[in-house]
């Protein structure tokens, strides 16, 4: 990625977006004093173009576009190492969650299809069946992501070990689950929740 000069002014610093991130994550980005401890311990930092500390730095400057345009947020494994070791109680894991959530509607956000697809399918599974069915999840994922042969060799072995259930059981709470999904959708539509 070509590095564009960063012009900083009240106009280019999008404080509103950062406030949303802070509200969703329940943490303050201004607390960070850039010690870099989060990046030092992050198991995924080597895969990210912006290491965790720089994600926070960019947020401090209101430059969320630069964060979302990159893949960093899609490489966070939610292992909470950063949050645990931060000397300043910056809950970086939650900030990552908030950024992924906000990237749905944000313009210019990178579409990290695989992770997004997996997450989406996972949530769909909950909505449809109430519980996860890994077989289904994996199969649909492979079909949708076009990697028909991925982990192909694992399937039969797992089946043989009884690790993949082919059928799902009935869950009496299905209507309740559906209501939770729809209520949240309604709240968002009315602007009662982020």
């Amino acid at each position, binding site marked *: 990625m070509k590095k564009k000069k960063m012009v900083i002014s009240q106009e280019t610093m999008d404080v509103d977006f950062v406030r949303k991130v802070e509200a969703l994550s329940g943490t303050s980005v201004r607390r960070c004093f850039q010690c870099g401890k989060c990046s030092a311990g992050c198991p995924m930092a080597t895969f990210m173009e912006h290491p965790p500390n720089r994600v926070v730095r960019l947020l401090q400057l209101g430059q969320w576009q630069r964060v979302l345009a990159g893949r960093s947020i899609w490489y966070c494994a939610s292992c909470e190492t950063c949050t645990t070791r931060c000397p300043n109680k910056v809950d970086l894991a939650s900030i990552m969650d908030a950024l992924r959530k906000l990237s749905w509607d944000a313009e210019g956000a990178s579409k990290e299809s695989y992770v997004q697809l997996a997450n989406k399918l996972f949530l769909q599974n909950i909505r449809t069946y109430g*519980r996860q069915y890994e077989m289904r999840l994996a199969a649909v994922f492979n079909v949708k992501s076009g990697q028909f042969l991925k982990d192909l060799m694992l399937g039969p072995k797992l089946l043989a070990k*009884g690790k993949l259930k082919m059928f799902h059981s009935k869950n009496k709470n299905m209507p309740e689950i559906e209501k939770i999904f729809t209520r949240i959708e309604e709240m968002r539509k009315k602007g009662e929740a982020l």
Partner: protein
Amino acid sequence: MKELNYSYYPGCSLHASAGEYDLSTRELFKALRIGLTEIPDWFCCGATPAHNVDELLSLSLCAKNLELADKVEGDMAVACASCFSRLKTAQHVLGESDVKRKQVEKAIDAPVKLDSNVKHLLEILAKDLGLERLAAAVNKPLSGLKVACYYGCLLTRPADVPNLDCAEAPTIMERVIEAAGAETVAWTHRLECCGANFTLSRPGVVLQLTNAILESAKAAGADCIMVGCPLCHGNLDIRQKEIEGVYSTSYGLPVFYLTQLVGLSVGLGADKLGLDAMMVNPMPLLKEKGFL
């Protein structure tokens, strides 16, 4: 002595890929005379994917499950580290933020219940039952078995949420398995991330992280790895062959659930522990050590 009874939240994996965890948990608790009642019609806590993209949904799913658990007597026993972490986090977040609690109450159309005790199996064995009573129940001590206890991310992190043990230097797994007569090894990667849910979307990442973990356990002289999380198990056990292939090495480290190893020590047979479901065959090791 007070009778121990719990409402049981197995989580999705235990009803699928981690069937042996479910089986061995039920059998172990039966052997230890700990009551376990599965919460009727529990549903998915949302795990990592939900909070990854939609915290409100994640909190709501957990809050609803907590409400379901409330109807069953006893504290909530949770086997999966991910479910444990999500339920604890939901309790923590909803306890701290009035705004989020109100949103969740609207989403589930019910008041949020935060006072129930969510406990991981380790906590039940080490604290509620107690290490002394656990040790007293051991009739086939795992003498000579060198176990690498793998905590992964979610059992202890972040520091003030699960409160299972110290976030950076936990010993609860070691204490439990030492009570079962096994030896533990000191190793460097017991708290490192295995890549967890990237197993589906980014298996390459997972292979790299998991390889480092297996390598460290092997270097420390472990005979096997013990876990308390189906995701860790999936990455370490199911993908072990693949890792060996990619990195042209050989580990052959069986990956046990904690309930399998403890179950073994209280005299449960292989059939009751689901040992045949493990991808890395543990039989040679267990036979060599004379446990079977």
